[in-house]
């Protein structure tokens, strides 16, 4: 992104929940990243890795009682962490919008989708009812909803899953946000519909210049959609970098293990799938050192200390890994020729 200041810069984000007896359980620990204008960043991780919590914290949507959020998240220079409700509300929807896995969490069943999108537009812009509706219909049409005028008059339950997702994206985009946070937006969809929605997200960046933070567990979705990728494991950043570099030369044994464990769609069929042993640790029982060590084939004494994120890969391309292997002079072999 050159010398330009990033659109969003997150530094050392930590989210802790009270664990009783004055203790805390850290769900997200020291996560730092940035997103440039018009960039698509993939946030990958398994359930419990902290990826959704990270997104919710940015949106000021963590409502767990007693949650303690520390660190910084600056959007165009403005601090989001601890921002008062009124100013957050003005930003939410207008500047930063979010879409969810289940469109029904973002929509009410008692109003037509047109009514809901109109309302969102009018909350942030001075527009007449007719003016808002015209924009709603235009947005639905841009999202590939067939017969958008009729669709605007329908209730969420009357639409298919794919159309509901499109309607939710239309609502999220209604005020031309500069940043769209998409939390598993295609996980509940069939692959043929997922392909359409991913195509839509890529078009968004091209036509609206929106930056996208795409949260997913699917490495395939990341490979085809994201410019850069960040892999979370047990609430910490395991690795991040340009998507192409990360897939060709994963530096963290967890990233490499994830990629290897996906059965290939083409080429030779392995007799056995390479698997990662065990399961991610419970947030309350994460080891002091590297959180991946108990499952790692390369675990050794040095892993008893939590590894810092260090640059790796080609100089200047921004790949970084929280693993001691590269600095010990024995990086993982490249995956792809």
């Amino acid at each position: 992104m050159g010398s330009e200041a990033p659109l969003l810069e997150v530094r050392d984000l930590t989210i802790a929940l009270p664990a009783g007896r004055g203790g805390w359980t850290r769900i997200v620990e020291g996560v730092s990243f940035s997103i440039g204008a018009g960039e698509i960043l993939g946030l990958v991780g398994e359930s419990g890795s902290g990826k959704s919590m990270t997104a919710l914290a940015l949106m000021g949507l963590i409502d767990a009682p007693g949650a303690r959020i520390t660190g910084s998240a600056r959007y165009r220079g403005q601090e989001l962490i601890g921002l008062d409700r009124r100013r957050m509300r003005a930003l939410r929807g207008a500047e930063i919008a979010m879409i969810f896995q289940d469109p029904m969490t973002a929509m009410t069943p008692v109003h037509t989708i047109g009514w809901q999108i109109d309302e969102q537009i009018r909350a942030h812009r001075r527009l007449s009812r007719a003016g808002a509706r015209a924009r709603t219909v235009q947005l639905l049409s841009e999202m590939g909803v067939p017969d958008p005028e009729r669709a605007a008059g329908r209730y969420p339950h009357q639409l298919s899953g794919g159309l509901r997702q499109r309607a939710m994206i239309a609502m999220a985009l209604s005020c031309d946000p500069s940043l769209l946070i998409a939390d598993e937006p295609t996980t509940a969809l069939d692959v043929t519909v997922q392909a359409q929605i991913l195509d839509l997200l890529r078009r968004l960046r091209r036509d609206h210049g929106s930056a996208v933070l795409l949260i997913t567990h699917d490495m395939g979705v990341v490979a085809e959609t994201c410019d850069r990728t960040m892999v979370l494991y047990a609430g910490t950043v395991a690795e991040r970098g340009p998507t192409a570099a990360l897939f060709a030369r994963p530096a963290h044994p967890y990233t490499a293990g994830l990629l290897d464990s996906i059965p290939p769609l083409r080429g030779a069929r392995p007799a056995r799938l390479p698997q990662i042993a065990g399961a991610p640790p419970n947030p309350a029982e994460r080891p002091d050192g590297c959180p991946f060590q108990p499952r790692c084939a390369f675990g050794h004494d040095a892993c008893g200390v939590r590894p810092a994120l260090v640059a790796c890969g080609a100089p200047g391309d921004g790949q970084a890994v929280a693993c001691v292997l590269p600095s010990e002079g024995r990086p993982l072999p490249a995956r792809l020729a």
Partner: protein
Amino acid sequence: MTGAAEAPLLEARDLSKHYRVGRQVLRAVDGVSLAVRAGETLGLVGESGCGKSTLGRCLLRLAEPSGGTVAFEGTDITRMSERALRRMRPRMQMVFQDSYAALNPRRRIGDLVAEPLRVHPGPDGRRGRDGIAARLAELVRLVGLPETALQRYPHEFSGGQRQRINIARALALSPALVVADEPVSALDVSIQAQIVNLFMDLQARLGLTYVFIAHDLSVVRQIATRVAVMYLGAVVELGGADAVLHAPAHPYTAALISAVPEPVVGAASRRTLLTGDVPSPIAPPPGCRFHTRCPVVQARCRTEPPVLRDVGGGQQAACHFPLG
């Protein structure tokens, strides 16, 4: 491939399952014929609502078919009495997607896995307490869990471990056939591989036959010998897993494969995007069910329904203009 003379373990003929929805009829499964050979894995793939889960349940008569027959080891189970069916049950078992919903949260794993052993007598009559304990120990080892797991409750396990428990329970009575409905789709990627490997190891050790229902084509390719692709209640393509997934004959299969996001940067560029959603199974399109979304549709497809027919290479496709 053994000789064609050998009878399949499971054979469905013109099987259908219709549900009444108000005054309309939803054809969840609509005239499916397929055979599963002993020792093989038939992958059943398709998008949500295509009828693959309903078909899976009909194959075991967990759902009552509306028409057609299912023969298991040569015996028609669709017209069998409940009693006779109950005697067949140990031979055919099911594993479900939701590993937690399938286990009573208030009972210990030992109880849950022992239940089928208590309900069904073994080959040498009813099992005693020691017989059950020995079998339980054997089963948890088989699925890669420690024996201490038997004393614990379902919530103490991760999703992958719970699926191992469900598999142990399904195997308790040494079935010949296991129908697994999306058994790995709720699991995290790093756990999925463990369970897929487990299914394959168990098949090799115990000579099991699987019907493996999944929407994930990569997983199906890994585990399946043959694949049946379903669309709106019907099988549109059937054949060897490699043949179907590498040289699909039906345009729907081709589109489905091309829509899979591969973990390879740049793979999306060779995609053929399907437009629209799957039509409602209450009012499927006339002619070929896929014609409303087919990229190579012709006039004939709009009126004349294609039947599943041989297209060479051991593949069958329900298409007037199969891909070459």
